[in-house]
């Protein structure tokens, strides 16, 4: 029986230690670099100079632009930096790899996972590993795309077998294909035991098919709801996919939790899906339809518009979406090529500060940019991520966490962000530690403290009006005593809520 989100959160206790290690990225002195044009979240954005373009790009392709990233991008150029990020295998990431070794369930097979006594362990470890990677990995664009596709092919980790099988989906479906061809990703997802369980495809039988997966395959994974298919198309696709199921944990003859096509429950009649006639062909029928959907023009539009919303703005221009869609089609659904075109577009370059950070973006960027370290328990941090509202894989409906300001910029949402920033910086979150002395270095005057912290957290100085509010605060009373609140306020400022 499916476990609902509440039970699941109660039951799992959530997250093992994310990492006891600290990120020891060198702090690069960049104070003397020319001051960038501040991102403005109120006025139309002007064309950016080189440095501002670097900062803007890094904020979008990562979970937080650290001094080390900024320094490197300045040194090798933003174009080369993006190219390197697009080939994550070329980036050494040993430190992250070491941190992940504590999560033993990450590389287990479904059979091994099913044998575990505590079914909550793989859930805790996958969530913890995901956050560890987003926080520490050098392959930031790759992790950004893993997050993107993980939400596109969203699976609620609390639903029965998904507790063990989402680990397998992450490992074999999302991560290997995050920067590859959409067709491969789609096929992999359609064979993913976790997806087949989550959307009930594994239970669908020929005589009376279950339509859940067929519907979302069209509506959410490929062509989109406005592409003109009918309810009849959904019902026909459900017939096509009958027999796409998984091996059961109780069946002792086979290894459990593996995709299998079961011809005995497949509907062998002729079908028609979106004007395509499908002759009886068993498993191959589904393969044909997946190919058709992967190369459908509506899919190119749908994926392009989601990428543009992720990387550019909540309402990207139709021209941008069309341009990306053309690249997507011409490159046979190549994510790398489409991203290159996106980062190269004028729309992208002119969109600095226009994306509101999702709670997870906010949370991870705060941890990255403050060099937070974890001492023993992450319980305190866990609780804040829950309050912020975006523990990975806990979105129950199949459409993935929303990625827009309208959904997340709420009263309670803002309050949680302010509180997280202020508590983190005053070292009041249990198990988390921030070394403000290291962050502020030699800064002693109110002006210098505000400058150093702004540059560190925002990659640039605060605009003058906000800066003078902060300097005024820093000048009231003892500067030493004020530093935690100054730092917390910058994390709570409107400027830190956008990327």
């Amino acid at each position: 029986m499916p476990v609902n989100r509440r039970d699941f959160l109660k039951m799992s206790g959530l997250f093992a230690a994310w990492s006891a290690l600290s990120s020891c990225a060198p702090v690069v002195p960049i104070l003397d670099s020319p001051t960038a044009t501040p991102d403005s979240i109120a006025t139309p954005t002007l064309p950016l100079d080189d440095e501002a373009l670097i900062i803007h790009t890094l904020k979008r392709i990562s979970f937080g632009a650290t001094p080390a990233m900024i320094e490197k991008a300045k040194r090798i150029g933003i174009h080369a930096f993006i190219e390197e990020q697009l080939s994550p295998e070329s980036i050494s990431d040993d430190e992250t790899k070491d941190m992940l070794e504590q999560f033993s369930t990450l590389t287990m097979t479904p059979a091994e996972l099913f044998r575990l006594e505590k079914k909550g362990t793989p859930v805790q470890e996958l969530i913890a590993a995901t956050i560890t990677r987003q926080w520490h990995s050098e392959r930031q664009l790759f992790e950004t795309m893993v997050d993107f596709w993980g939400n596109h092919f969203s699976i609620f980790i609390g639903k029965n077998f998904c507790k063990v099988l989402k680990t397998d989906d992450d490992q074999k479906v999302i991560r290997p294909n995050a920067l590859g061809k959409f067709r491969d990703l789609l096929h992999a997802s359609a064979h993913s035991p976790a997806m087949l369980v989550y959307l009930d495809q594994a239970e669908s039988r020929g005589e009376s098919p279950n339509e859940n997966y067929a519907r979302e395959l069209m509506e959410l994974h490929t062509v989109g709801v406005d592409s003109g298919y009918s309810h009849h198309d959904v019902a026909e696709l459900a017939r096509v996919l009958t027999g796409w199921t998984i091996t059961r944990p109780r069946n002792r003859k086979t290894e459990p939790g593996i995709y299998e096509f079961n011809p005995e429950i497949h509907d062998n009649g002729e079908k028609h899906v979106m004007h395509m006639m499908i002759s009886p062909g068993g498993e191959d029928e589904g393969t044909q339809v997946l190919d058709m959907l992967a190369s459908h023009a509506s899919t190119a539009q749908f994926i392009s518009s989601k990428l543009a919303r992720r990387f550019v703005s909540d309402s990207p221009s139709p021209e941008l979406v069309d341009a990306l869609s053309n690249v997507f089609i011409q490159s046979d659904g190549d994510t790398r090529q489409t991203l290159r075109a996106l980062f190269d577009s004028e729309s992208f370059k002119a969109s600095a500060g226009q994306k509101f950070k999702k709670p997870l973006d906010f949370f991870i960027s705060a941890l990255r940019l403050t060099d937070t370290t974890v001492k023993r328990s992450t319980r305190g941090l866990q609780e804040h991520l829950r309050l912020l509202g975006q523990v990975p894989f806990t979105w129950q409906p199949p459409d993935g966490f929303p990625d827009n300001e309208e959904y997340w910029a709420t009263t309670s949402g803002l309050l949680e962000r302010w509180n997280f920033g202020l508590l983190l910086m005053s070292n009041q979150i249990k198990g988390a530690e921030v070394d403000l002395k290291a962050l502020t270095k030699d800064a002693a005057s109110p002006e210098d403290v505000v400058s150093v912290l702004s540059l560190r957290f925002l990659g640039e100085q605060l605009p003058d009006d906000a800066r003078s509010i902060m300097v005024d605060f820093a000048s009231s009373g003892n500067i030493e005593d004020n530093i935690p609140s100054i730092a917390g306020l910058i994390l709570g400022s409107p400027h830190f809520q956008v990327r």
Partner: protein
Amino acid sequence: MDTKLSRRDFLKLAGSFAVAPALPTWMPRMAFAPQGVEPPGDILVVVFQRGGMDGISAVIPHGDGDYYQHRSALAIPEPEDGSDQTGIDLDGFFGLHPSLRPLKDLWDEKTLAIVHAVGSPDPTHSHFDAMDYMERGTPGEKSIPTGWIGRHLQTAPWQNESPFRAIGMGGVMQAALRGPIPVTTLKSISDFHLQGDVSQLTEIRARLESLYNLGSTLDAEAMETFNAVDMLDKIDVTNYTPSGAAVYPETEFGMAMKQVAQIAKAEIGLEVACVDIGGWDTHNQQGQLEGELPTLLNEFSSGLASLYHDLGDRAERVTIVTMSEFGRRVRENGSEGTDHGHGNCMFVLGGGVNGGKVYGEWPGLAPEKLFDGIDLDIKTDYRHVLGEVVEKRLKNPSLGEVFPTYSDWKNLGIVQG
């Protein structure tokens, strides 16, 4: 392309109407009581059952023989007196699922009405489109960016500047609330205060107010947050004991309903609360008398009943309405679940409800009577139900603006007034 106007665009357009800071924002705000005219009507609580509730399992048409033809594993048995393994008879034709037992007393005392074969007429089977249409109040039409409750608040002939005029529980702003009137979202009343270095909170608060007064798109939302924090500061949140022997379910939904009662009793200007309860998308093994759906129905009904009982005399001035984006397929599928359907049922509860009756024409479940050959047909547009509540209980006569694409109004007599 999507050209919808965001709430913040609205706030800009609405200008001083929505939020009118007369004082410099860095000054400590005076705690304020709701200004202007006292709202003349009820408090409205809208419960949205996300995922598509199986309406013919919740309120079973046991008098319709076709019901038992379509459902072999999932049909709820015909009512038998004294049994908790059968439906609970309501009127000889309809009955409640046994897991909705907490609603039976309310039915008997005629404060609970049910509308059946009701819903949004758009035929979509997409959760997301169906919810979107329902919450906009304009089925089939996405060009109007506001929600039906947002337009109600906007057109109501009274003013109420309380930050708790409209609240979205669960920390989200439900799409029905979209519009120019600010909405406070809440997860937990007791956590709704500023934290940090306690010796500096006053200073921190002042600087935050200044930082959110520099023209960012977040300014209005931040102002709303400060106002809400100030107001909740005056409520004793730690010692709340529900009245009327109400025992709320220990779930997010139960806690949300309890906090609605708390805010309603605090008399801080509450007019509308939106509460969500998810998990209704029961494609697989939904359960007949036990299991996924029965568990949810029990949580749902005890949440509704607890709120009603907890409110005591105040329930005279509260109306609770429930809805779900669509019902489920009449015929069960091969995995003992149900796929996305069309018609559904709604519950209307409150002191001003003409309860003890199932409203709406019943289309029947004979194959030729089904919508598109598969689904329960819709004989009552859900806007009739909401329209009546808006006009008679909330005392807002502007139905043409609340539901701009609808004009074929019928008076069902579900509520008094």
